[in-house]
């Protein structure tokens, strides 16, 4: 079976250099990262610590009352191991105060609200600390749209956005993310018992192999099916990618003038830097 080539040693040095370069050229030397206790944020934080120094990283833990206590203890494990600065901000009161007004809200609305609440807190602390918000979304999530727009998907720079989940695992192990975090089942922990793979309906290792061939290697639908992927699986994943394209773009702007932002007003983000 096709493995996704990873080369963890080279990957680590490229990403450390990426974080250092892209942060420092903005004129700051610190980042703020939300620590969920999961493998993505743990890896992001540890790579940043290597790039900028442990005292230049603020890991913020943002538990809700129903969050699994394990998540918090795993996040604390990362703080201990990496020596970064940390802060716990419990979001229960503000979330509950809001939903008192809308008590019928379902899990999805509550989950999205929590993700966005956390985002506002990270950005607030990035302003307080003169830092950038470090992203933690991986390529699998970005392609499947498995994240909250303007929530966990929001960041200034993201070292993991071109790594599939299975690559994140391999790199996390190499970089020394605590084993208990690397080996546990991935979960957004927005409600009790939630797991990514349960919610998505397939495993990361299956979907990563498919996405790698489909996106990176440009295999056609027929070629993927010939490779042994079930038709329904290929179509489901294709549809997920198409339907979540909006999460990977700026909002749609009505074109009126000669030069419209993001259409024919084109500049690099690193403009002048």
């Amino acid at each position: 079976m096709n493995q996704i080539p990873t080369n963890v040693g080279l990957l680590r040095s490229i990403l450390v250099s990426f974080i250092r370069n892209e942060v420092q050229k903005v004129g700051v030397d610190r980042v703020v990262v939300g620590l969920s206790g999961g493998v993505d944020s743990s890896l992001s934080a540890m790579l940043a610590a290597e790039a900028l120094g442990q005292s230049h990283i603020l890991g913020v833990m943002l538990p809700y009352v129903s969050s699994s206590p394990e998540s918090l203890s795993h996040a604390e494990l990362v703080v201990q191991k990496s020596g970064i600065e940390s802060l716990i901000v419990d979001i229960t009161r503000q979330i509950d105060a809001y939903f008192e007004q809308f008590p019928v809200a379902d899990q999805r609305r509550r989950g999205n609200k929590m993700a966005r609440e956390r985002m506002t807190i990270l950005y607030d602390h990035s302003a307080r600390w003169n830092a950038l918000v470090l992203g933690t979304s991986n390529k699998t999530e970005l392609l499947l749209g498995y994240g909250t727009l303007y929530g966990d998907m929001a960041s200034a720079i993201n070292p993991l956005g071109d790594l599939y989940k299975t690559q994140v695992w391999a790199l996390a192990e190499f970089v020394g993310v605590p084993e208990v975090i690397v080996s546990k089942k991935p979960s957004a922990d927005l409600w009790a018992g939630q797991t990514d793979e349960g919610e998505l309906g397939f495993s990361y290792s299956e979907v990563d192999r498919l996405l790698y061939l489909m996106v990176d290697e440009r295999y056609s639908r027929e070629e993927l099916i010939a490779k042994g992927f079930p038709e329904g699986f290929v179509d489901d994943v294709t549809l997920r990618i198409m339907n979540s394209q909006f999460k990977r773009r700026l909002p749609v702007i009505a074109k009126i003038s000669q030069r419209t932002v993001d259409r024919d007003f084109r500049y690099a983000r690193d403009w002048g830097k």
Partner: protein
Amino acid sequence: MSYRFGIAQINPKLGDVEANLALYEEKLRQARDKGVELLLFPELTLTGYFLRDMVPNVALKLSSRVIRHLKGLSKKVGFVAGMVEESSDYRFFNAAIHFEAGEIRHVHRKVYLPTYGMFDEQRYFARGDRIRAYDTKFGRIAILVCEDLWHPSTIGLAALDGALAILCPSASPLRGLTEGRVQDDNARYWEMINQAYAETFNLFLIFGNRVGFEDGVGFWGGSEILDPFGKRVAKAKYYDEDLIVGEVAFESVRRKRTMAPILRDEDLDLTINELMRIRERPSHLKIQEKAPRKGGLKVKGKKRTRGRKKR
């Protein structure tokens, strides 16, 4: 004769010509201290690479103040600069300019502008229309910018035009990882063709690549000087700034060309005749897409305009 050529593997600021000019001056000072006689700066390092709509703002006319300043700098050490050149009819070229002894010795306008994948060059730049070797105080050389070298015809022409060395300023992004390698897949590909070209065309290949990141895209560095035997005379670090110096001993071109007189034996007329024939009809690959007709191959379709590929 042997000369000391250097490569400044730098990380320029995107869209900030003044800052990059200061960086050029610093590197020229360092190069002079190392006895460098010709310093190669990578592609578009006076401006940065992913310029997009900034192109007209950083473009330089050959009569501009910055160019005059660069000419002045070349009185001490000659160098090849990478910049956006603006022509008198307001076209913008991705250009590499050789400054020597206070003058412009040569301007190469990049011919092959990658416009696929992450690249957008043809959207912003006009295409160069010539490949020329030219004489310098070191001997006859040619400049090919980055993607130019991915078209073997360019280096073939330069070699036939008498170049003993190719200078290839690049802004080559890292991409693709394979287990167990010290460099990314794109770096490996470049190193393979650089070595093959140096040996095949029996010349020095001086490849200068930049480093740093622009909007998350990293440039892999790894600049190198190869001799006509394919040996690496000098090699820069991967992914990090560096300044390397190598001896470019043209007598080794003589030795190699004596042992393997490939260029001497090149049949120019044959090549030209075959190229004329190929230009006049679509390639055999195109014909194969359709079933052959009875009574021989009849080819429909308009003649291709000379030397221009429409995209």
